[in-house]
């Protein structure tokens, strides 16, 4: 299995504040890597660095073996291959659901309007949102908005999908409808890196779980090991707190 994504000793700081220390990570094709850790541990920053929304201060990020952290690289071309879904959905409020989904296929990937519509219709009907196609995002529930956001990312047929706490802004009832999409994608063999606080879900989809604390990966391994038998004291503390908050 070849690695879709590889991180080598990545470091990122905002001024004096070092957010990521020496992060190394390999994500083989068709696998899901789950990042867990408290807020502020660096999960979101790591995802934003992979998506080249932030530049790194040391190390290297490789996509399909090609270094993408090189400053001379065409960031737009890289982002065409890996898309990101955000905690706050970030749908375009002035566009309908269908327009949200077809924008990138048409403008970025040069698809004709008909082709893009076809892809969008297929995805929307698969995830039960076809009837919302002509609605504006503010008419949708949070769960529906986030599902549209995921579909919007899928419509460009990405090599790698980044999901940044996609359920954190949702109430518990809506969480499930979003997670079930991600499970489906895992079933399709989509390569993913995701940050989440949903430990039960992490157990189901993760091929590898990484526990981040203060910008370093303290512990990593298969979900059933890291989540069920954490070795590190800090991992144990974190999981205990999550458990107390009723999220396990």
């Amino acid at each position, binding site marked *: 299995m070849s690695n879709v994504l590889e991180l080598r000793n990545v470091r990122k700081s905002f001024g004096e504040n070092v957010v990521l220390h020496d992060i190394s990570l390999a994500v083989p094709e068709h696998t899901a890597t789950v990042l867990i850790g408290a807020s502020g541990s660096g999960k979101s920053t790591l995802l934003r660095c992979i998506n080249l929304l932030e530049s790194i201060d040391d190390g290297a990020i490789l996509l399909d073996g090609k270094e993408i952290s090189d400053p001379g690289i065409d960031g737009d071309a890289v982002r065409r291959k890996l898309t990101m879904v955000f905690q706050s959905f970030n749908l375009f409020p002035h566009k309908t659901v269908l327009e949200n989904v077809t924008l990138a296929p048409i403008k*970025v990937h040069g698809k004709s309007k008909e082709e893009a519509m076809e892809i969008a219709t297929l995805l929307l009907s698969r995830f039960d949102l076809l009837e919302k196609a002509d609605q504006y995002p503010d008419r949708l529930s949070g769960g529906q908005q986030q599902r549209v956001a995921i579909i919007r990312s899928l419509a460009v047929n990405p090599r790698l999908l980044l999901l940044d706490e996609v359920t954190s802004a949702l109430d518990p009832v809506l969480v499930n409808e979003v997670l079930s999409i991600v499970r489906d994608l895992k079933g399709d063999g989509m390569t993913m890196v995701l940050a989440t606080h949903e430990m039960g879900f992490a157990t189901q989809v993760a091929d590898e779980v990484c526990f981040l604390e203060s910008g370093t990966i303290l512990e990593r391994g298969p979900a059933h090991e890291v989540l069920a038998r954490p070795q590190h004291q800090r991992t144990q503390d974190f999981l205990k707190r999550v458990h107390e908050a009723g999220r396990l």
Partner: protein
Amino acid sequence: MEKRGNEHASPWTPSERELERRQIRRALTKRKIVIASLSSLIVISLLATVVVTSPGFQVVRQTFFDFHYGQVVIKTVSRGILVNLLLTIVASILIGFIALVLALLRTTKSAALVPFRFLATVYVDIFRGVPLLLVILLVGFGVPALRLTGMTNSVLVLGTIAVVLTYSAYVAEVIRSGILSIHPSQRAAARSLGLSQAQTMRHVVLPQAIRRVIPPLLNDFVSLLKDTGLVSILGVTDAVRAAQIHASRTFNYTPYVVAALLFLIITIPLTRYTDKALHRTYSAQNAQGEA
């Protein structure tokens, strides 16, 4: 929000307490109406008394509100206001285009456009800071003095240029504030889908920004219409100038009042519409209720 009908609800009749509350609310409303009417009556009659009993009232009525003279001049003054309208329409099209370019230049991060960004900033600083009347005088009398070949000496054209120069700076700043008000997460979402800087601006940021600044832009449009009256100083026969010609001949100032009324006929519907647009924008944003 979606409305969901509830077919299983039992028929509802207001409770005793609710009926009581409604009565109290009605009484309160009645009291408010009485107070408002009384206060309006007192203020208006006081003002009227002061005006009518003032020593110069008779003179003012003859020199400012001469109905028959008003009828005589209304024709030429209305012809003048058509000039104001024409100038406003032509200018606003040019302003919209130039202001958009200025706003985009001022918000661009492209390295190749750095000198243009600098020039746009200087431009906006200058024309926002110089009184419109001065710009009109400088362009109106300065440009012809240059004796450039092919340059028009038409005061109407020069006046329009001056107005466009100044208002482009104002409007550019309004559009720029709209662009800056769009949350960075919208850009992040667009970029992460692979859209370039320019595509993000064109398809995601700008449409939202423009929608947001429509009410202040309408406001500027009304100001623009009024400020076209300033080009009369160059000798353009607009409503102000037409009124002035009459007034200086007869020493009766009724033509000015006529011009003012004609401006109001156009601007009042516009300002009402602006208020409405503003209300629509805010009620859409504050769907959580207005406290």
